[in-house]
């Protein structure tokens, strides 16, 4: 009886457990590694001691407690949230555009966020608090413009028009950003630090600000995992299967953009996560979005949390920009994917 075999693979259990274990391990490493090393058992017991009605005493000193929960934890959690978001958004963009090499910055999120942040750094004076909302606004505006331009360029269902519109908007935003940056060369250093991305200033406040956006965005995208598989057979066939392709594409792009913009607003422009993670899952597990999307969320979170550990330890006490590390591993990986896609 073949009936048992006629089912989608979804997320194979062993891989689901692997990805969850990877994320957990990355979080423990992130909390434990640093100028003062703290063992995983201590961290787990300390964590349990903070849970009401669980009677475990923390073995950590009050200084260690502060290091783990006030300095490292917000940073590790933020890196995991941003990593998961960028990976899921990357996978979704790849599905919507049926192109395995696109990333979540395709429609101008990065250029728009860069322009927003640069404007505030250049004209906003010392107040760094306005940078995230300005970056978020720039990113969202950029994609909205690209979408409007892509739709007005004739065939609303064509992805090519949308991609070209994204390139157009991104180029324009980058031109304005460079101009503003050159006019305020005294702020060049601050702009660069933001563009390269990182979590060195992460606080629980940042985590609280981005969590709602990332939660909504990833929930919507994970719910679309089967629909992304339907889109993989092409616009016409998806439409003849009863899917409103134009609307679905808009919903997925909008959800991915809101989450990505929020992630970029608090972490700067971190490249390649949205390509490396979904592809690693395609190579290891399956190309069905029912596996790629949920596993990208877990593995992306673990990947960026670990990358951040490298960023703050490799040249310690100096920090490497995290974007340098993701690009250092990402570029060769990208080349391999490109070669395999011939």
């Amino acid at each position, binding site marked *: 009886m073949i009936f048992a075999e006629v*089912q*989608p693979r979804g997320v194979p259990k062993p891989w689901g457990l692997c990805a969850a274990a990877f994320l957990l391990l990355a979080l423990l490493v992130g909390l434990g590694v640093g100028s003062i090393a703290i063992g995983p058992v201590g961290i787990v017991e300390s964590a349990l001691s903070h849970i009401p009605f669980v009677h475990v005493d923390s073995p950590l000193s009050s200084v260690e407690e502060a290091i783990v929960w006030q300095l490292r934890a917000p940073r590790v959690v933020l890196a995991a949230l941003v990593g998961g978001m960028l990976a899921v958004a990357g996978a979704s963009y790849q599905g919507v555009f049926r192109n395995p090499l696109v990333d979540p910055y395709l429609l101008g999120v990065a250029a728009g966020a860069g322009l927003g942040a640069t404007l505030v750094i250049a004209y906003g004076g010392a107040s760094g608090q306005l940078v995230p909302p300005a970056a978020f606004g720039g990113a969202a505006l950029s994609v909205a413009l690209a979408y409007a331009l892509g739709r007005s360029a*004739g065939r609303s269902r064509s992805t090519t028009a949308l991609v070209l519109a994204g390139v157009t908007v991104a180029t324009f935003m980058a031109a304005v950003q460079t101009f503003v940056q050159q006019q305020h060369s005294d702020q060049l250093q601050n702009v660069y630090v933001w563009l390269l991305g990182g979590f060195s200033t992460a606080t629980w406040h940042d985590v609280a600000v981005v969590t709602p956006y990332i939660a909504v965005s990833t929930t919507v995208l994970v719910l679309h995992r*089967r629909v992304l*598989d339907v889109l*993989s057979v092409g616009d*016409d066939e998806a*439409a*003849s299967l009863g899917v409103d392709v134009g609307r679905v594409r808009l919903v997925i792009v909008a959800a991915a953009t809101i989450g990505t913009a929020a992630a970029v607003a608090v972490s700067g422009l971190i490249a390649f996560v949205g390509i490396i993670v979904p592809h690693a899952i395609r190579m290891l597990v399956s190309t069905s979005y029912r596996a790629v999307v949920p596993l990208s969320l877990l593995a992306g979170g673990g990947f960026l949390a670990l990358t951040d550990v490298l960023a703050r330890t490799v040249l310690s006490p100096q920090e490497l920009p995290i974007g340098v590390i993701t690009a250092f591993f990402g570029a060769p990986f990208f080349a391999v994917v490109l070669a395999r896609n011939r």
Partner: protein
Amino acid sequence: MIELADVSVSLGGVPVLERISFRVEGGEWVGLLGPNGAGKTTALRALAGLVDHTGVIRLGGDELSGLGRRALARRVTLVPQQPERPPGLTVAEYVLLGRTPYLSYFGSERAADRAAAARALARLELDRFATRSLGSLSGGELQRAVLARALAQEAKILLLDEPTTALDLGRQQQALELVASLREDGLTIVSAMHDLTLAGLYSDRLVLLDRGRVAAEGSATDVLSPDNIAGWYGASVKVVEDDGTIYVLPQRD
């Protein structure tokens, strides 16, 4: 039953179909013929609701433009000329996509959907291939997987755009025999076809399109005359009738 009455379609301001009218009875197989650019594919796309049309298309008495996308997908299934076949999906996963019109937007397949996909796989003798990836199949097996996906959709109207392109002669015949056998399930078939002999051999009736209009309609004997073919295709052919079958053979003058 399918009925087209004065159906016109324009693409980017260019008229592609101009007031075409024809009927397809329930259970019938109608072959759409015509030279390149005659509007065969556009006619199929109009029947699948993929392009806007003026005039009236009726499916079993209901106007197509009044049907929702999902309702239409339960009645009509389209196999495009070059379907996208994501190489990483398993045959089972691919065939299950055919159940999309029956699933809620965020829902997943239930037992009934898996049973329908299993029936489609068995019907096309793909049982053994359920867990194989599409990328590992041969051309003929892929063609069967595409038909199984269409069958799992359980629509009564099957639209085929050039179902035998890129297949060798033997595979062409196998594919068409397979389609012919699906009619036992009560399917109504409209197919765009290039090969005139095969079109005449398998279809009940032929509709010849030229520059967006119906140029001729009827049995193979009526439509596939040397004059018609010379006139509409600009081709020089010899037409041989043998035991009721029409053979269209290219010749040099």
